[in-house]
């Protein structure tokens, strides 16, 4: 990365800084509070009661992951796959990934790319910002969990292992990477940020719903394999199963295809 690209990365990080800090603080606080919720449920011996309230057919439909969720570790892990957390993280990812389209729309790109900067550096800058911001948010979330577990939960609480928390955070990072690549490819082709982010948002929503249908309705199961969320299985991680290599490979590959496409599209288009 040359001096100009570093300058662009720093510039973009400065611009997105308030949002990244805000989301990091809120999600870290949420993770911390979830450890307190888990501690409260444990102290009031509510986990067994919660499990008994779930009808048998629901339990059999959801499998062992349902019981895993109704445990101390399950509640602590909830923040790593809660839909609102997913929406926040993917929203931030799309906002960052569509920066090239925003710069074309505002004509800021005329000022940067009229200087000795390759178009690939603009895409590389966006990827670097995505990675840095993803690390900051996930780091803050992990810190929230760690602080909550370390300082404010009963000593005998069955804490989730560090490996489980790491794999949950990595799982979240992988789904964000995948959608970051897709949103970046859309942004590389778009003239307006609203177009790119709108398309990316609709695709995320459609994919999420398709995956949901695939999980509860057999006829949609095959089709749901095209959804990136099909390869996002946090509940199995809570039960202690490690990250599935095919799932990881699929999400990484989807992100890579998106970023590769964005390099190609952005380098060939008229700005």
């Amino acid at each position, binding site marked *: 990365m040359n001096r100009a690209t570093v*300058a662009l990365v720093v510039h973009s990080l400065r611009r997105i800084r308030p949002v990244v800090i805000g989301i990091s603080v809120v999600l870290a606080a949420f993770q911390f509070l979830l450890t307190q919720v888990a501690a409260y449920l444990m102290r009031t011996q509510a986990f067994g009661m919660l499990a008994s309230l779930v009808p048998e057919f629901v339990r059999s439909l959801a499998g062992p992951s349902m019981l895993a969720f109704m445990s101390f570790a399950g509640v602590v892990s909830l923040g790593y796959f809660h839909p609102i957390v997913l929406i926040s993280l993917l929203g931030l990812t799309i906002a960052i990934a569509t920066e090239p389209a925003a710069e074309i729309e505002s004509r800021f790109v005329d000022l940067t790319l*009229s200087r000795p900067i390759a178009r690939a550096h603009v895409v590389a800058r966006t990827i670097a910002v995505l990675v840095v911001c993803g690390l900051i948010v996930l780091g803050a979330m992990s810190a929230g969990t760690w602080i909550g577990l370390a300082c404010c939960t009963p000593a005998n609480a069955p804490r989730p292992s560090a490996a489980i928390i790491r794999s949950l955070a990595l799982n979240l990072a992988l789904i964000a990477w995948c959608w970051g690549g897709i949103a970046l490819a859309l942004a590389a082709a778009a003239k307006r940020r609203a177009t790119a982010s709108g398309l990316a948002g609709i695709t995320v929503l459609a994919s999420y719903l398709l995956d949901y249908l695939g999980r509860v309705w057999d006829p949609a199961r095959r089709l749901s394999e095209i959804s990136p969320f099909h390869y996002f299985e946090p509940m199995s991680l809570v039960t202690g199963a490690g990250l599935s290599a095919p799932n990881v490979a699929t999400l990484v590959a989807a992100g890579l295809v998106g970023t590769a496409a964005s390099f190609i599209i952005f380098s060939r288009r008229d700005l």
Partner: protein
Amino acid sequence: MAIRLEHLGKRYGRLPALHDVSLHVEAGEVFGFLGVNGAGKTTTIRILLDLVRPTTGRAWIFDRDCQKQGREVRADIGYLPGEPGFYGDMTGAATLDLLGRLSRQRVDPAWRRTILDRLELASADLQRRIREYSTGMKRKLGIVQALQADPPLLVLDEPTEGLDPLMQEAFYDLLGEIRRRGRTVFMSSHVLPEVERVCDRIGLLRGGELVLLSTVTEVRGLAGRRVRITFADDVPAPAVWPPSCEAIAVAPRLWDLSIRGPLGPIVSLLAALPVVDVDVQMPHLEEILRNYYASEAR
């Protein structure tokens, strides 16, 4: 040679924006690129900067291909866009610093200060957010960011648009200094008196085609000088006017003529007549080019 365009063409879908444009600009020259809105000036400039890819033809800057060696080419260019896309929430100083860091040449603070002083952009102004700037201040900031790295070639798209007359004067002075430093300037403009004043040569685009490429002096020669002769007594008009002389209005004591070429024949004709006053007006570029624009409108 600073700029060379050969058979440059650009289509946006089915819409032709530029057709077979060939020209060159010598190093150290101030070249005016003229044309009405949509004539293809900005498209040409964007091809030079590799922001837009040509459909046909090629462009070189300092003998380097603008598309194949774009980064090297752009290291030598300072560009003022027609509408600079500054971030409103950034200060002027932060914007200049960022854009300075993106240039290959280090920005000399003394030279930047000189430009800022000439354009009367105070330090306090630079500490304000750009959203608080007037149109003229944004234009000045645009000029400073283009000039601050002191590149060998300046590409300026409508540089005085939005500047008040005093600032236009300051800009012309600055342009004079840039020319003395041996820099090349390629500027598009609508303002013909400005072009006439600062440019060595002009190119006129009409409907995406280059219809005129000439020095300002040569262009002036395309039109006749206006000569108004006042007589002390009534004088009959001659049966035959001297060559290259065209009568616009003839009255007993006033002849209004347009003369292309030397004034000798008309002076000889006047020698025996009771002349009170001869007023010779040089043709204005504006009048000449207006004819080209008018023919486009037709």
